[in-house]
């Protein structure tokens, strides 16, 4: 146990340094490239004097190194992520991000649940039918879903379910709204607008989960305790559900993190195409309108999520497989 504690602590101590490097890279890329948020809002017929004044107001006329220093001080010492310049003038970044995050989380959760609910049975079924045509066929079917890019799948889902059948809305995000800290959040999860994004996000994730479940199930099926359970004369269902599934599903905890990453990338397109106000679409808007602070805040937030997820995965491994120890390995 002590091994994990020091290991986790060491990883956590590294985290701020990694985040520092992440912000530095993101910061230099945004400032180095052409175009800035002030040019975006001032448009084609700008007044040079006003342009310079706004630049000075936002502190963008200072040397880049100094700007970076100010940014770091604001973020790490005061927890202030800055404010939007070109998307929503003067609104604090955090107030823009969190309502959108809640929208994306609704989609992500539903998609994750569907993906696991489909992937686990398919994986176990494929493992039990190993050697027959059902095994490669079932996994390959979902591999096909994984192979169709969201860019193609979403317009087709819209064509079939919204335009031809007229069952679902073409896009957007409806549903009952709740008020949270002065902001209205639509619970699209309770409306028809969830269906297309949920399908588009969950189906591509099924194959990975099914494949892993199949591999772990196969490993468990060869264990002595499974043979013992069969020898006792237990029904096949009891053997699979009690003895096999229980042990085969534990390692799946570790792919939750990876699935979230896939979902995030998918959300980028799905939200942009369907016009859903989540963080994927926000990221796209922020990049195209060079809204510095919004870009940096999103990068920082995702970086934190990635690092934490990876640490949690490593810790989960030690609980699942006690043979793994994270002692300090001397690399000589």
């Amino acid at each position, binding site marked *: 146990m002590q091994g994990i504690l020091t290991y986790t602590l060491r990883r956590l101590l*590294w985290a701020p*340094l*990694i*985040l520092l*490097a*992440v912000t530095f*890279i*993101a910061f230099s*890329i*945004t400032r*180095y*490239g*052409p*175009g800035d948020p002030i040019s975006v809002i001032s448009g084609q017929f700008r007044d040079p004097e006003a342009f310079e004044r706004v630049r000075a107001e936002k502190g963008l006329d200072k040397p880049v190194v100094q700007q970076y220093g100010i940014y770091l001080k604001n973020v790490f010492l005061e927890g202030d992520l800055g404010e939007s310049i070109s998307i929503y003038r003067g609104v604090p970044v955090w107030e823009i991000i969190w309502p959108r995050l809640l929208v994306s989380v609704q989609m992500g959760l539903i998609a994750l649940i569907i993906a696991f609910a489909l992937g686990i049975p398919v994986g176990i079924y494929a493992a039990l039918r190993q050697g027959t045509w059902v095994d*490669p066929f079932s*996994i*390959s079917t979902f*591999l*096909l879903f*994984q*192979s*169709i*890019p969201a*860019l*193609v799948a*979403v*317009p*087709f889902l*819209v*064509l079939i379910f*919204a*335009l031809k059948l007229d069952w679902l809305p*073409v896009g957007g995000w409806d549903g009952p709204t709740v008020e949270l800290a002065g902001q209205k959040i639509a619970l699209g999860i309770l409306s028809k607008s969830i269906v297309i994004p949920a399908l588009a996000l969950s189906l591509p994730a099924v*194959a990975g989960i099914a*494949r892993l479940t199949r*591999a772990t199930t196969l490993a468990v099926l060869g264990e002595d305790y499974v043979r013992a359970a069969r020898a006792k004369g237990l029904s096949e269902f009891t053997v699979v559900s009690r003895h096999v599934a229980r042990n085969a599903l534990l390692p799946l905890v570790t792919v939750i993190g990876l699935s979230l990453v896939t979902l*995030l*990338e998918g959300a*980028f*397109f799905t939200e942009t*195409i369907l016009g859903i106000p989540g963080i994927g679409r926000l*990221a*796209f808007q922020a*990049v*195209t309108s060079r809204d510095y602070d919004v*870009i940096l805040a*999103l*990068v920082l937030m*995702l*970086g934190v999520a*990635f*690092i934490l997820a*990876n640490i949690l995965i490593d810790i989960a491994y030690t609980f699942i497989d006690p043979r793994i120890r994270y002692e300090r390995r001397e*690399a*000589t």
Partner: protein
Amino acid sequence: MAQAATDTIEEMEARPSPSPLRLALRRLLRKKLAVAAILAIVIFYGAGIFAPLVAPYSYRQQNLDRDLEGPSLDHALGTDRLGRDMLSRVIWSARTTVIVTAATVLTGGIVLSVGLGLLSGYLGGKMDTLIMRVGDVFFALPGLPMLILINATMRPRVVEAARWVEDHTGIEGIVSSGAPDYFLIFGALSLFAWVGGARVIRSQVLALRETEYVQAARAMGAGAWRIVISHLLPNVSNIVIVGVSASLGAIAGSEIALTWFGVGIQPPTPSFGALIFDASNPRVINAHPHLLLVPGVAVGVLIFAFNLLGDALNDVLTPRAR
């Protein structure tokens, strides 16, 4: 098989045993799905490489009298809104995919990941820490948004650099050929593509370094270079093949995504990203679904083939999964 039965034991012993790679290839060719996948990939890449010979029309030849047609004898896959032949545009787009995937795999998938993985695992110490920490940073950066950002902001700089090269070397047509776009995309993709591979290779090298044959080589006075090239590299080649085949689909998908966002390959150079973008507006797709169906199926089949091949290679080359 019939011949093997007639062989005497002496003959079988006299024959040199086939190399592991040959055995793996034989196992691979026994899988029907894998063979189908290889066939699909060969057709796709062949069409891309020989696009000028294979494509029935030029990708920019317009015929406004015959726009938005369905499939016909003249145009096997129909025409787009400017009357350009869809089949030719798909074939030329395949060329873009071929260039980007090949360049990214060579630089990020093989040179960077294998080189840094070997270096990190074999040398250890400060070098190892440095490479792995840099890897951590790239791993923590959100891939797609960063790629979009890099491509959106760096393009003018790369075009400037290409112009400079044109002016100073007398080579012409670098910018007009779209080379800066290709360079930008595969450069940015490689920057993020190496981390996973390098990590796996490093951990494998850490184990291999302690094996007896490496120690024996070291005891005989073999230098670091020799050990890495002739003892470590052949033993990580399986991992490299599996890793590269698994990442090909994602690389092809990323190029399409970047171009879709308008920061990848710029028109008039054709790319699946642009074809899909042009076709995915609700009004267009409702009236002319073939405009999306054609590039969509081409891309879907390619990535599906990559995924199937990756799976099959994983089965064949990773002993644990066999």
